[in-house]
């Protein structure tokens, strides 16, 4: 009899497998594992998988929608043939047979409005908590509260989505969900996942105990096979439903935001480049200005030192004739007094002596006044040169040297001096300044020749390191090495004062050359002669323009 019964069952399977059977499947809202969409279509991981298996097994699936509690009861009563997405518990094993392969591993998660308020199970004390009616997780959660002695008001809901809605509307303080559904929905509601998780369980397929074993076997066979292949339908389905926000679902505003960010980044980048360019240009410009300032500063320092020197020298040199004036004024008073006394006494000899003294006093007073005048004129001359602008023109230096020599022709012939002017180039400089330089240097060479020795003066030229270098060489008295630096100072005269001069010639030369971007220096040996060199820039145009910017 028993054998007949087994045979009957096998026969039944074969018949239904071949002819197709209709399997009633309970469906409740447990997105994304199983749910009914707005168009009434059954969807989710379990639905995809069941459809896949049904197609291959020749099953007709009839989905029967209801709440979880209704689905549970329908399976238990045999009204439905199968239930997908059902947690395994010890009690349920008394009523149902489960598939060996689980659909998912799930656990409970507590959602709240603000995680700042709820960190542990104890923070749920006194709260209103939405919980799924007859739900596996719901039952475990209630036990958990009891275990920890937490008193809370449980608000039973027919679906997990209702629990979430209540939480979103703040009609409850917390909602208990399975983690799969929670993760799926948490982006759509104003809720947050708290750190509280509990009660892991396996979500499986089940039939009423002792019935429809072929369903469970077929499911196990297919699921086991699908799980072995990494890219199988099973994994594609999981991926599709467990990652509900793929790139294709990115909302329009996100694209707009991304585009905006890119535009901002480009603008920022462009702006940054623009400012970097501006800053670079400014830095370059400041660097140029800085080097100009340094140059001017150095020039000012030099002028300041020279000015102090001039003041010191002038004050001394003016003092000297003033001392004479003062001294001879005193003498004059004495001699006038002596003259008057002698006249009164009729002492002719003393009268004439006093008269001679007075003449001498007047001579020295006159000399002192003339000296002061000369000094003032010299200072004025130098100051005028410093203030005067320069007008660069083309100068034939050979012609200029020749012209200056011609004006000294008489002295040259008189002293029997031999003067050689060698070939020279054209330069660009201020004519009056350079004429003054050349005439002063030739005049000095002629003035300080040695007595009794035939004089020889030779001019020279060479180009050295971008400069014109001119020279005036003589075989005159020469200058002591200690005195060479002094000769360019205003009113400074070295050696014997047996030649006429007020000590400004070389200072004048120095100033004139400086105005034209050149300089002057001297090499000399006492008793053997001197060579005075002066330089002018090769490119006088450039210097003139550079100076013009300031």
């Amino acid at each position, binding site marked *: 009899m028993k054998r007949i019964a087994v045979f009957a069952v096998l026969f039944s399977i074969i018949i239904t497998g071949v002819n197709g059977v209709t399997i009633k499947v309970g469906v409740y809202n447990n997105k994304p594992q199983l749910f009914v969409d707005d168009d009434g279509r059954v969807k989710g991981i379990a639905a995809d998988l069941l459809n896949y298996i049904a197609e291959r097994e020749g099953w007709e699936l009839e989905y029967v929608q209801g709440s979880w509690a209704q689905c549970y009861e329908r399976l238990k009563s045999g009204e439905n043939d199968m239930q997908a997405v059902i947690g395994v518990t010890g009690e349920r094993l008394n009523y149902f047979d489960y598939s060996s392969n689980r659909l998912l591993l799930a656990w409970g998660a507590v959602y709240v409005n603000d995680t700042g308020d709820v960190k542990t199970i104890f923070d749920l004390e006194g709260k209103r908590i939405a919980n799924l009616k007859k739900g596996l997780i719901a039952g475990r959660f209630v036990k958990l509260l009891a275990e920890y002695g937490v008193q809370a008001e449980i608000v039973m809901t027919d679906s997990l989505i209702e629990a979430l809605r209540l939480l979103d509307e703040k009609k409850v303080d917390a909602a208990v969900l399975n983690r799969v559904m929670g993760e799926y929905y948490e982006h759509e509601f104003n809720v947050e996942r708290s750190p509280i998780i509990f009660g892991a369980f396996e979500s499986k397929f089940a039939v009423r105990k002792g019935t429809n074993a072929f369903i469970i076997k077929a499911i196990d066979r297919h699921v086991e096979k699908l799980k072995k292949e990494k890219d199988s339908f099973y994994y594609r389905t999981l991926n599709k439903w467990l990652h509900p926000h793929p790139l294709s679902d990115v909302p329009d505003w996100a694209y707009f935001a991304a585009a905006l960010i890119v535009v901002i980044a480009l603008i920022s980048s462009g702006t940054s480049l623009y400012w970097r360019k501006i800053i670079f240009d400014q830095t370059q410009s400041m660097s140029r200005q800085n080097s100009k300032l340094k140059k001017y500063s150095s020039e000012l320092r030099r002028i300041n030192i020279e000015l102090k020197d001039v003041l010191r020298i002038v004050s*001394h040199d003016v003092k000297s004739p003033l001392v004479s004036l003062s001294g001879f004024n005193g003498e004059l008073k004495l001699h006038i007094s002596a003259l008057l006394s002698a006249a009164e006494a009729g002492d002719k000899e003393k009268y004439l002596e006093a008269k001679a003294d007075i003449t001498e006093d007047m001579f020295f007073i006159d000399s002192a006044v003339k000296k002061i005048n000369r000094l003032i004129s010299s200072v004025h001359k130098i100051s005028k040169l410093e203030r005067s602008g320069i007008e660069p023109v083309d100068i034939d230096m050979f012609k200029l040297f020749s012209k200056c020599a011609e004006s000294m022709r008489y002295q040259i012939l008189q002293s029997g001096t031999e003067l050689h002017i060698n070939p020279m180039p054209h330069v660009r400089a201020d004519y009056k300044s350079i004429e003054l330089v050349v005439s002063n240097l030739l005049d000095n060479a002629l003035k300080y020749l040695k007595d009794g020795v035939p004089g020889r003066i030779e001019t020279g030229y060479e180009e050295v390191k971008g400069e014109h270098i001119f020279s005036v060489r003589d075989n005159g008295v020469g200058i002591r090495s200690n005195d060479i630096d002094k000769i360019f100072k205003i009113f400074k005269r070295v*050696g014997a004062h047996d030649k006429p001069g007020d000590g400004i010639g070389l200072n004048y030369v120095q100033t004139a050359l400086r105005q034209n971007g050149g300089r002057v220096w001297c090499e000399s040996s006492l008793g053997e002669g001197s060579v005075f060199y002066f330089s002018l820039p090769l490119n006088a145009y450039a210097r003139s323009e550079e100076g013009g910017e300031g």
Partner: protein
Amino acid sequence: MTILHVEDDPAHAHLVRKNLKRSEYPGNVINFEDGRQIIDFLNKKESGEYYPFVILLDLNLPGIDGFEVLKTVKDDKDTMRIPVIVLSTNGEKSEVDSCYEKGANFYVRKPFDYSEFSAAVRKIAALFELIESPSYSS
């Protein structure tokens, strides 16, 4: 009884000579126009017969200036005992101090009046007891 006077300005040299003459100074006055001349003179052996009892020294001289002359005179054991009266138009403290540091015996600022100048000469004469004339012994 020689006075060596170093002065490049002929007017100043003349004034000093006149003051010395008015003081009835009996000795010789030898004038030098620059520092090199007096140093060369002191280095000559024959200068012994003109060995000075004082040097009147201007500071602003061409070539070797007065400071160098002063230093040379005071650094040389043969001439270091010769009193030196510096005559200068400057009168700044730094210059006065510098002269005394180098061994000057007096610093007289130009323009000096007759009494100031002759007092300096008299003091030196008395110090060295070189002159018996009443006008230089007080």
